[in-house]
Structures are given as structure tokens and as C-alpha cells.
């Protein structure tokens, strides 16, 4: 490859192009200005989206990564620009989202002098990055960026951060790019061990009541087809974690619903009745297991997992199968027998009936006067033929939306799972829409989370991002209020909110909007939002004191899941 003499800043952009990047989210500032200046010449190859806050940029990059499977890229300046990325980095780290973040840094002779907008970004981001590196000379840039993409996107993905000093951005050198494919100290994944696969298959073939629990690892490995093939061949019912949602179509006969604290009744209690549990690309989060000492004690545990540190971290695996879910499932499919477990699957359907009568029907077809979150979600899902992308914030609406929104395609659910980041939905939906411009994208948020990143309405307006924003407004921090009601004697300590006129705010940003306060307006309003070309803010005023059920109280066993207070 012929070399060309370029500045460090140009090298940043050229390297990103080499990695196939065409979308960047960011916010300029002093220490990253040379890179932004270089970017100015590449507007044909790269689209940069100027958000209203760096947190908006990084969540947008997460949303983009989620729906495309590619690394999200984001730029920020030094000091406050970089520190504003922290929440997004922590979110991406715990949810295994591939990100490459580039921050500007003061010129290297000024490092450690408390220079203007200097902060020790490398140290601050250590616990929330898969890898980070400070670049202080232009020559290092291509190799650092190549390494960043390799680390972010392979193995168990995660966020990486490159901190590039201003003098490195200005420095001139002969640019040459070589992709990184191997790092001596870093093994992205283990090759799947055929003996472990055989051991797992033997247990599965002998199982009477097997249950599959699948998580984000299925989506990250693009193993949706393999998952489907595996459960169809073996006839094993399959339940999902919050981040596994959408990897199996909602209407698949073996999809038995959501695990965990606000998940479905059947998969929770049946986890403690199964004789074999096959965990695929999931990490037994405490919201999934409830009380660990009372979790699946009777079952043999088979754990398909890419990250060795997850094996035996929470739940001891009888048979661990290391490697990517795609490869291990493919090998497992070849080793398991065709089977069916009709009577066992029927037990889940019986549970569904109980849950439908006690909870679901009241949530999605309520008879009472006030609107429920559940009916709004049902209508949004139905009116888009269960084929839209759902981006949720954190709290009651997130659990309700995950329970009642239906999916037919993978990579259609975008949410903050591990970190539970309020304010995630609005910016993440921007990345989701940019990554999948031809699909309908809903951003669903509560009144609390919506206001945490409400400034991104400006970004949505500027780039005319056609996002259907639903604000489920109960004038409360609903999930905290629910806990206060159930576990703190209704002492509603600082959870009630006096909210602004959301329709007025949307209007001020030049966005179409509407407010719904009664059931007879709801269907038409959702239809109007969908018919409208361009972004739309739909505020739905919902019942103040509605609760999310079922519920596993903290510290309780999944067997003690409550269907009502």
C-alpha cells in the first residue's frame, strides 16, 4: 500500500474510513478541533451527527451499534466532553456494546499540569472500558484505531476509548493502514470444545424438562437462526433475558417469555422445576436469578458462554461450553436428538393463562377509566404489525414495554439492561433510526427519563430523524414509587414530579406532537403519529399508581413470584 503524508487528524478520519465507518456521533470542543477540521473534508464519506450533549452522542452510538451489529463511533473533546461520556461507557461495558470513542486531549507537554479542560480520561475510564489508550504522537494513530476496532468488536464486545493529544492531531507522518487481526495477549473467544458439546448433548438428550434461557450473547454472535434451529430440533421451550429479547420471534410456539423480576410467571417458576437448564449467552444477572441459593438447584446447568469469567461466576455450570454462541449452538445442533416436550411446554401455556387472567388482560385491555402503559404498548406494537424497533428507557414503562411489545425481527429491542440508565431511550433511538432508517423506531420513555436527555429533541429536529416518541407520563418516578408503595409504606419520598407541557416543548423544537388523556383518543393518536412523516412526540397521561406485576421482591426466590400485591 502506498503511503501518504497526512496530519494525525486526517489519519483519524482515514483510519475510520478503513474500518468502514460512515456514521459518527459527537460534539466538538477545543482539544478535538483539529479532528473536526479534518472531518470537514470528508462529508461525502462520513455523516457526523451533532448531538446536544456528549451523553446523547454515546447513547446514540450504542443504539446504532445495537441495531446494526457494527461498532458505534463517537467523538468528544477533553475534560467535560470526555467526562460526559462516562455513563454511556459504563452502560456499554455492562451490556457488551461495541463502541469506539475518541476524545481530544490537551497537548502532551501540558499533561498533568491542570491545563484548561484537562482531565485524566484514561484513569477515569479504566473501570468502564474494555480497553483504552492515550495517543501522544501522530504515528501511533492508525495502529491504535485498528486495535480499538478489533478489541471493541470481537469476543465479548465492549467500549474502547482512545484519548488523542492535540499535538498528535497536528503531527505530520506517512499514513499507512493495517487492520488488526491478532493481539498476543488477547484471545477473543475459545474454539468450542467438541467434548464439552458432547457432554452437553448427552444431558440434553436425556432431559425430561429442559429449559433454554437465552440472552444478549445470541444477538451479539448473530446466532438467532442457530437458536431457533436448536430449540425446534429439541422441542425445548425457551425464555429470554431483557437483552435477549427479539432474538426469537415473539409468536414462536417455543418462546415462553421473559425471565426475571418483572418477567413472565411460567419461565420463572419453571426454572425451578426444570431438570436441565441450558443458558445461552446470558450471565445470570441478579434480576434474573432472584435469590441465588434458591435458583435452579434441582437442574443440571449447561452454560454456553463466550466469556470464561462468566462461567461459575454466579451459578455453577455442570457443563460449561466456551465459545461464541453461534459456533457452540451449531455444534450442539449436530449432537442433539430430534425431540419434543409437548406436556412440559403445555405447563408453560397453563401458566400463561393464569398470568393473562390475573395480570396481562388488565394491563393491555383495561376496563378501568385511567389509561395503562400496557395498552399503549399493545396498540403501538399492533399498529406496526409487531415489526418495529423498540427503544426503551428505564423503569416501569421499560418492563411493561418489554413484556407486551411483540417482535418479528432480531436486533429490534434497544434498552439499557445492566446499568439501568435513565435518559437512554431518546438518544439511543437516534442511533437506532440512523442505523435502520427504513424501519419504524419507537422511543418509549417515562416522564422522568425523558427529561434526563430531553435536549436531544434538538438533534432529532435538526436531522429530521423520523422517531415515534411516546412519553408515558404518570407524573411520578413510577418504579421507585411502586417500591415505596410496596416496601416503604407508601412514603413517596421525592418521586412526584411537576412536569412541563411536553407538547409545548416538542412544538418549540418544531416537532409534531399530541397529548392523550383518555382511551377514546388513544388509537387515533397512535395512528396519527405513525402516519405523520417525521418525528412525533406523543404524550400519554397514564394512571398514577399503576404497578408492574408479576414481581419477584428483592431477595426472594423466583418460585415466589407475585402476580398481585
Amino acid at each position, binding site marked *: 500500500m502506498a503511503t501518504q503524508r497526512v496530519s494525525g487528524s486526517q489519519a483519524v478520519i482515514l483510519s475510520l474510513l478503513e474500518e468502514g465507518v460512515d456514521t459518527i456521533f459527537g460534539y466538538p470542543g477545543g482539544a478535538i478541533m483539529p479532528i473536526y477540521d479534518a472531518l470537514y473534508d470528508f462529508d461525502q464519506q462520513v455523516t457526523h451527527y451533532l448531538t446536544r450533549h456528549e451523553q446523547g452522542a454515546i447513547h446514540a452510538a450504542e443504539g446504532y451499534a445495537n441495531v446494526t451489529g457494527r461498532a458505534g463511533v463517537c467523538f468528544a473533546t477533553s475534560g467535560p466532553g470526555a467526562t460526559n461520556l462516562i455513563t454511556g461507557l459504563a452502560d456499554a461495558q455492562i451490556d457488551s456494546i461495541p463502541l469506539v470513542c475518541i476524545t481530544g486531549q490537551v497537548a502532551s507537554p501540558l499533561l498533568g499540569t491542570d491545563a484548561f479542560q484537562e482531565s485524566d480520561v484514561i484513569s477515569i475510564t479504566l473501570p468502564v472500558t474494555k480497553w483504552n489508550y492515550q495517543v501522544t504522537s501522530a504515528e501511533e494513530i492508525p495502529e491504535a484505531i485498528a486495535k480499538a476496532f478489533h478489541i471493541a468488536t470481537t469476543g465479548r464486545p465492549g467500549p474502547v476509548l482512545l484519548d488523542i493529544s492535540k499535538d498528535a492531531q497536528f503531527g505530520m507522518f506517512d499514513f499507512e493502514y493495517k487492520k488488526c487481526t491478532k493481539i498476543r*495477549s488477547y484471545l477473543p*473467544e475459545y474454539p468450542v470444545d467438541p467434548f464439552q458439546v458432547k457432554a452437553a448433548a448427552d444431558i440434553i438428550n436425556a432431559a425430561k424438562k429442559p429449559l433454554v434461557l437465552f440472552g444478549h450473547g445470541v444477538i451479539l454472535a448473530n446466532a438467532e437462526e442457530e437458536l431457533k434451529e436448536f430449540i425446534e430440533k429439541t422441542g425445548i421451550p425457551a425464555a429470554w433475558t431483557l437483552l435477549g429479547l427479539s432474538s426469537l420471534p415473539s409468536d414462536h410456539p417455543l418462546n415462553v417469555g421473559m425471565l426475571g423480576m418483572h418477567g413472565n410467571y411460567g419461565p420463572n417458576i419453571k426454572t425451578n422445576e426444570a431438570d436441565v437448564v441450558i443458558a445461552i449467552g446470558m450471565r445470570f444477572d441478579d434480576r434474573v436469578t432472584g435469590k441465588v441459593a434458591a435458583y435452579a438447584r434441582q437442574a443440571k446447568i449447561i452454560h454456553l458462554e463466550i466469556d470464561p*469469567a462468566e462461567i461459575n461466576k454466579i451459578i455453577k455450570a455442570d457443563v460449561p461450553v466456551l465459545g461464541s454462541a453461534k459456533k457452540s449452538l451449531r455444534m450442539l445442533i449436530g449432537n442433539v436428538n430430534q425431540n419434543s416436550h409437548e406436556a412440559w411446554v403445555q405447563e408453560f401455556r397453563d401458566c400463561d393463562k393464569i398470568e393473562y387472567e390475573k395480570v396481562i388482560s388488565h394491563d393491555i385491555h383495561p376496563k378501568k377509566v385511567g389509561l395503562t402503559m400496557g395498552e399503549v404498548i399493545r396498540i403501538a406494537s399492533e399498529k406496526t404489525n409487531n415489526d418495529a424497533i423498540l427503544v426503551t428507557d428505564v423503569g416501569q414503562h421499560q418492563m411493561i414495554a418489554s413484556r407486551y411489545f411483540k417482535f418479528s425481527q432480531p436486533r429490534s429491542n434497544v434498552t439499557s439492561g445492566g446499568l439501568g440508565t435513565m435518559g437512554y431511550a431518546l438518544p439511543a433511538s437516534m442511533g437506532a433510526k440512523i442505523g435502520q432508517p427504513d424501519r419504524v423506531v419507537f422511543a418509549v420513555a417515562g416522564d422522568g427519563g425523558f427529561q434526563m436527555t430531553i435536549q436531544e429533541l434538538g438533534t432529532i429536529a435538526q436531522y429530521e430523524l423520523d422517531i415515534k416518541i411516546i412519553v408515558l407520563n404518570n407524573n411520578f418516578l413510577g418504579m421507585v414509587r411502586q417500591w415505596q408503595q410496596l416496601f416503604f409504606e407508601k412514603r413517596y419520598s421525592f418521586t412526584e414530579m411537576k412536569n412541563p407541557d411536553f407538547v409545548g416543548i416538542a412544538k418549540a423544537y418544531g416537532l409534531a406532537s399530541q397529548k392523550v388523556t383518555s382511551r377514546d383518543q388513544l388509537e387515533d393518536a397512535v395512528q396519527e403519529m405513525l402516519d405523520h412523516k417525521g418525528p412525533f412526540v406523543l404524550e400519554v397521561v397514564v394512571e398514577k399508581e399503576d404497578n408492574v406485576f408479576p414481581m419477584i421482591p428483592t431477595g426472594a426466590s423466583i418460585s415466589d413470584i407475585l402476580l398481585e400485591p
Partner: protein
Amino acid sequence: MKQEYIITVFSEDQIGLLSRITIIFTRRKINIDSLTVSASAIPGIFKFTIVIKETLDRVQKVVGQLEKVVDVMKAYFNTNEEMICQEIALYKVPIEELFESDKIEQIVRNSGARILEITREYVVIEKTGHTNETQQLFDELNVFGVTQFNRSGRVAITRSSIEKLSEFLKERDALLEQVD
């Protein structure tokens, strides 16, 4: 049950790696009793020797987290019995105490320590051994007043005839070839 473990981490030579390693302990509120960083026998590969008191389960999990660090090649953990380990300690005692009686000289002889330096004001004694040995010498000398004391972190090598990491690196190369 908690007991002393020696964790050995082999890594690339990278700025900031020490912090990335120590935060794995601080996040779990595990105290590092001793930490030594040095070159290993393999050129370019560094070695962290970390001593903690923990349960076997927690040590195993910490080692799993250490191995996730991109620039870390491999981490091992061992009990004290499985390793040959030493620490070095230096003691400063006022010179008058040495001349007043032969007690200090006897202590030094009996403990296998040696005198490094004698000046008009003080004598510096050096002792290599296990923590309890260097501590015992401290206690004995402190009867006369130790004015300065410093003990190094633990250095340790395994009782195996080869460096396990060399084998590991060969296997790792093969694994990297297998995974595309």
C-alpha cells in the same frame, strides 16, 4: 475460609496497566498485602506478584477478571506452599547500640542477616526471608530502637521445573490461529 494466595499476572509492558489490575481488587474491596512488578524471564513480558488473603472462590473469580484485561496474558494463583518466595527487609539502628553490647551482633548472626553499612550514626542491617522471619528480626532489633524499616513486596517463583507461561504462550498461539 480466607488464606494467603500469591497471584502472578503476566502482561505486556503498558502504561496504566498497573491501575487496570489494581482496580479489579479495589472494586471488590480486597486489600493487596504486597505487590511486586518486575520483568519475567521472557523478554518483553512483565510479571506482577500480588499477595492477598481471600477465599478460594474469590481468588478464582479475581483471576478470571484479571485474565479479561486485554494486555494481560495469563494469571495464576498459588498458595505459599506451592511457591518459593522471599522478601527483603532493611533495618536502621543507632550506632551506639551496636557498640554498647554484642547483642545486636548476635541477633544478626543468629538470624542470618547481614550488615550492609556502618556509619558514625547508624548501622543498616539487611535480612532476606519470609514475612515472619523479617518481622521477628524487627521485633528483636526494636528492643534497641529501629529508626527506619522497609520491607519489599514478595517475590515468588513456582516449584515447577519450567515457566508455565512459556507453555501457555505456545498454546495461545495455536488458539489464535484456530479462531478466525
